[in-house]
């Protein structure tokens, strides 16, 4: 761990200024990821800008009936918010599938979006890693890659984005509201996280001098037919090997709207809108679900240890669609899979 300055931002403008003036400055919110990365010498910021006192800790109604989730709303507060539970139960469920109660209390909404991959090599400065040290190579491709991505990978990086919450946000078509020196802008959730391509060191389209102020979820009506199904190496407190968020509208046994996003399989929450369209107008049944799964996974590529994820993802998609269609969402308390 290096030495660094600590300052507390008093306003959003203040925070942006502090960051813009120093390319090696980092924001700290819950600290559950940035501090680990600093202890491992993966991040060596010159300055930590504490943003926890900014007025971004509220969940507000949007005029369209959606919600504006302040960047500093804790994962726990968000998951247990009554409005979220009633109107966006998928989001609540995905958050509760992740981490532990203690971590969810500390972790923030903005930080969750920006948490970095759990690739072993990325965390270990004794090994090369293109994401940590561009151009040094990607040992995961021929090495330990059981937890790595099967979709949207590149020859430079096969890491996954580890968040559960983001998988739900991707399915729900959220937007990320950010502010920078040039003002505010809004980034569609699907455009926020990137694929690794030739620059795996860049996780997102957020610019270095921008701050996330909120995540907005538009109004919608997926309260009945949804699920978040997470498969992992123990029944709680492990990152997803594969997870699936599904939100459906079903009318008379036929699907009228579908949202499907996958976690644990790619460098970003994976959404395939063409696959979603395949479902629309079809009876909510196994045939349609299989077709969707096959479509989503058609481009999947396995490596030495993670090929199983392709088959697992296929089954998980089908099961999650069945759960959502039946209106029996996966419980995050009872570990039996519905």
């Amino acid at each position, binding site marked *: *761990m*290096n*030495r660094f300055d600590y300052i507390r931002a008093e306003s959003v403008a203040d925070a942006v200024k502090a960051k813009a003036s120093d390319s090696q400055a980092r924001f700290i919110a819950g600290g559950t990821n940035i501090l680990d990365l600093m*202890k*491992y*010498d993966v991040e*060596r910021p010159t300055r930590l800008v504490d943003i926890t006192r900014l007025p971004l800790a509220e969940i507000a109604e949007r005029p369209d009936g959606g919600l504006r989730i302040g960047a500093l709303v804790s994962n726990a507060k968000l998951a247990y918010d009554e409005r979220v539970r009633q109107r966006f139960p998928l989001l609540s469920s995905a958050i509760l599938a992740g981490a532990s109660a203690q971590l969810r209390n500390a972790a923030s909404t903005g930080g969750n979006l920006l948490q970095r991959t*759990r690739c*072993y*090599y990325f*965390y*270990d*400065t*004794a*090994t090369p890693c293109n994401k940590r040290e561009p151009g040094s190579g990607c*040992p995961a491709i*021929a*090495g*330990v890659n*059981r*937890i790595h991505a099967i979709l949207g990978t590149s020859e430079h990086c096969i890491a996954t984005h580890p968040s559960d919450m983001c998988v739900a946000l991707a399915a729900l078509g959220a937007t990320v509201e950010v502010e920078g020196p040039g003002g505010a802008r809004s980034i569609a959730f699907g455009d926020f996280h990137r694929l690794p391509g030739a620059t795996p060191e860049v996780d997102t389209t957020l610019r270095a001098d921008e701050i996330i102020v909120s995540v907005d979820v538009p109004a919608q009506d997926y309260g009945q037919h949804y699920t978040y199904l997470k*498969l992992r*190496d*123990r*029944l*709680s*407190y*492990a*990152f997803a*090997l594969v997870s699936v968020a599904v939100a459906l509208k079903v009318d008379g046994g036929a699907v009228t709207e579908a949202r499907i996003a996958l976690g644990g399989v790619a460098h970003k929450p994976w959404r395939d809108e063409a696959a979603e369209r395949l479902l629309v107008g079809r009876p909510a049944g196994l045939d349609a679900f299989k077709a969707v799964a096959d479509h989503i996974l058609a481009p999947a590529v396995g490596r030495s*240890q993670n090929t*199983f994820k392709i*088959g*697992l993802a296929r*089954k*998980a998609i089908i*099961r999650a669609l069945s759960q959502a269609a039946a209106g029996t969402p996966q419980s995050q308390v009872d*570990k*039996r*899979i*519905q």
Partner: protein
Amino acid sequence: MTTRQNLVGTAQRRVDGRAKVTGAARYAAEFAATDLLHGVVVSSAIARGKITRIDSKAAAAVPGVVKIYTHENRPRTAWLDSSYSDEVAPPGHPFRALRSAEIMFSGQPVALVVAGDFETATYAASLIEVAYAAEAPQTDLDRQRSESYVPPKKRSGIEPPPKPRGDADRAFAGAPVRVQQEYRVAVEHHNPMEPHATTVVWEGGGAITVHDKIQGVTNTHAYIQGVFGLSADKVRVLSPFVGGGFGSGLRPQYQLFLSVLAALDLERSVRVVLTRDQMFTFGHRPLAIQTVSLGAEADGRLTAILHDSVQETSRFEDYQENQVNWSGMLYRCDNTKLGYELAKLDTYTPADMRAPGAVLGLYALEAAMDELAYATGIDPVELRLRNYIDDRDQNTNKRLTSKALRDCYIQGAERFGWSRRDARPRSMTEGRELVGWGMATGVWEAMMQKTSARATLTADGRLEVATATADIGTGTYTILTQIGADALGLRMEDVTARLGDTSLPHAPLEGGSWTAASAGTAVQIACETVREAVFKLARRLDGSPLANVDLDHVTFRDGRIEVTNDPSRSVSLADAVKSSKGGKVEAEETASPSMIQQMRYVAYTHSAVFVEVKVDEELGVVRVTRVVSAVAAGKILNLKTARSQILGGIVMGIGSALHEESVLDHDFGRFMNHNLAEYHVPANADIGAIDVIFVDEPDDKASPIGVKGLGEIGIVGTGAAVANAIYHATGKRVRDLPITIDKLLDA
């Protein structure tokens, strides 16, 4: 004399529980010292090769850095390798930190940065640049197994496999029913909650007090004397509380060496704490590739057992544990052939980890027995009963001090509801899930080691019992308090136990499940001596109501000695002690195992573990919903702490079956998931109902107090029982633990 056991055998709360949850119990890294310096270890990035250059200029220039130690400037320590050996070291050349430029394993300490505060030392450590000439490491046992060898020198305390019995190859070839399979369990790291740490307090005049994370202060004490040439009286080692060990704290580790080195050199107090990732840079449960071949008659009677293991060790030591010998003693069989070989890898030496050897060996044997049950169509419990033997240990031909394993099978099966099991795989379901019931046998040695203890009764009527041994969380403080209290008729709160200090009577390491039997006996006899002495004092008091009574006719109760037939005649212990010269009555005694007994008898603990799993077959998700473990371990001193030991063992066994795995990258020769987010131990959600039964097992030979020990038996067999249950549920036999989703889907 009447011996009343009011407390021994009951469920008593941990006497140190409050101190632990309030933080009053202090661990090695928590002891303060004036002007304490902090050392931070820099770890090697490569697994094999040489350091060509260490540049520590930038680090040394950081204000607050006191000194940086590398192999280039290490102060002199003992010359001979043998000086670095320890109580449980395997044969070979013990690792010597900063000895030379040679790198023998990934994460090897290459520098120690000492500074006035932890943050400065940590920062400076990050500035040290090390250049290496790396060689390709060999860490793949599948490749190295072709160069396996029989260890030329046996490890003290570990019996090599017994000579073959009968003709196992022929018997196997001719057996009507045969099972032959290969089994393995992934490398595991102990990962106790408390990381390894040492605080060395410089006392002046060349003397040091060492707070070490160790399962036995005497081992550290001897090591420091050997390595640094200090005389015994210049070193005191303390380890009153240990935040989990599981065997990782048996041998002195490099943070001890480095902190003492720096403290003696700088004549200052120094603390070194390892990080969680550095906890993956020393001992681990080894990977072993085991083959078990069972031949049986159609009625299930075993006619041949062959069990071979090839196990990894380091380049510098031949770590050995007993993996295969169990297969020669657990079931009646006339033809056995057991083999145990090592193969060298570029990793640190493996280390004893809870029930070392038995966890691996019993997994293989008990999984194979399950396969035999299906091959013969005989119920797994019945198969074991048909091969039951309790008249002797076939490996040594000695008699067993006791063996109530049959009762474990019967009572365990009864509690579990085993008779309702449909033997056919995939036959039991609940909703969408497949239900599987599996079982396995566990066995572990019951040992006793020479241990001394002191008992001191003071004029306030309080008793202190003391021995150098450790309480690594097992409940040693509590059981010694119970034994002391019962011996003198006191309440728990009148007795204090002191442990983990070389100024106390000598004791061996806390390991092998021998502490309750050994320290318990030592405390018992020391208390008996005190009892006699205090009784004499009581009798000699002026007008003593006990004047004409002898020891056989009194009872020690409620802090008094009373005439058994006439409790109105009594003397308080306090009054008796007050009449003594020094104002206290004290005795130190040593308990040793009986040589004659050991020539004729061997002692083992046993268990029968029954497991229920529910499996979502399609998604490969396994839930362990129920475990019943029936344990025969002689006398149970404290039902509560005993149960906790079994619970912990079972949880760890479930971990080895489903979760724990240290993943090696063979290109780097490095364990990659070196943190607790990616190294999975069971979470609360992974554990269902656990029911522990202690079957009655009177034993007057295993130890004088009838105790056999419980620290390890809980884990043994549990892995096999889980794997067997998964087979019963799914019809899929995964022979490579842990059984993760990918393996179950592929099977």
